[in-house]
């Protein structure tokens, strides 16, 4: 599996989408044969996944927004994206 690094640019492929579940009051990532329940911070990450921003860029924005340490935020985003890439729910493209 391609390593997920700060330079990786994640992208949601067709067939994966974020939806608000109003009946249950939660956010879901709907994917082929899978439903992921997202907490508030995971929603914030997925919201930033646009196929253009690198994980480093997403980290900067979220660390600032939530006044959290960059290192911690980056490690957690990488872990989360790694898990989704392994299941082919998120695609990666290396930024130039």
């Amino acid at each position, binding site marked *: 599996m391609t390593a997920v690094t700060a330079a990786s640019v994640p992208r949601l492929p067709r067939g994966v989408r974020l939806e608000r579940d109003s009946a249950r009051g939660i956010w879901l990532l709907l994917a082929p044969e899978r439903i992921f329940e997202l907490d508030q911070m995971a929603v914030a990450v997925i919201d930033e996944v646009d196929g253009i921003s690198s994980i480093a860029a997403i980290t900067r924005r979220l660390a600032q927004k939530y006044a959290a340490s960059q290192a911690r935020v980056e490690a957690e985003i990488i872990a*989360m994206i790694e898990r989704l890439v392994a299941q082919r729910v998120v695609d990666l493209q290396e930024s130039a």
Partner: protein
Amino acid sequence: MSMQPELAQREPASRGPAYRPWGLLAELTHRCPLACPYCSNPLALVSKNEELDTETWLRVLTEAAALGVRQVHLSGGEPTTRSDIVEITAACRRLGLYSNLITSGVGAARAKLPALAEAGLDHVQLSLQGVNQTQADAVGGLAGSHQAKLAFAADVTACGLPLTLNAVIHRGNIHDTDAMIDFALRLGARRLEVAHTQFYGWALANRAALMPAREDVVTTIRRVQKAQVELKGRLAIDLVVPDYFARYPKACCGGWGRRLISVTPAGKVLPCHAAETIPGLTFFSCWERSLAEIWASPAFEAFRGTDWMQEPCRSCDRKEWDFGGCRCQAFALTGDAAATDPACSFSPEHARISALATQESTSAPPPYIPRRAAKDVVSA
């Protein structure tokens, strides 16, 4: 910051006893160009003139969304046989429902694919009958079906839709799992389901012809597990183990009446598509009641939760994980739908069905009983 674990097989306890379904299995039709011997449809198939009309399916989808359903599995039979498949798919998108087309890729599937993609189809799950033309056409019972399927798969990936291949494993193809994996990679599939035959409907009637040998099952599982690691990030592989050889039963449907609601082509609303095989339960039709009423009806309550369980399930610490296995299989193999699924090693019947599987898999295979339309059903 953390991503919650993927929704487990069960609803978190904190949400209370009011279960809500996540998935709707919409069995749009039993009509199908193929005649696979492991078809999970019931022996008595619904004919075209008994099928629900478009208006009723649209109402069912609307009610399903309100009840909490997020994913709709458009299945059959071959769902693209329905003349309103595009309209039904568009309705899913409009209602915020994730649509999954479960198709053979033959018949009308390829011609309708562009319109389905345009209507907002989210995902295609394509069945695989074999890795070469001779094998695939023999299992599906239709000459040319394999070529049609390949062309369909290429169109799916070309239009950017995610593709999952579903390969049903049985004694006739259990040595081909490596070739299936290569095949999935060549076709550009994101996911592959290596699904050992589950014995319901036509598959139960053909069990002796389909049952693989235990040593082949063990070898296959090992090879697939190795490929899961090697192909991480390229191909996601789901493995469904053959439960006659398992130690613990499958958490069938994520528990009766907990996660899934199934509607037959004629409009019967069921906790799982095989539930009508259990006698003594009254299943209502979506003609006469709303999905919400039926979700709360006695047949859905019958095996919901854990109060209905007997020993050894009742005191088992796995009861909230696998719910005692499958109710339909418990009934089919023991005559008691509330018994522990004999696939479980704690079941007093486990040794008997394990021996049965060994005996069937080591005897010469009988010919397949091909799946037939309603008129000429075999008595099995």
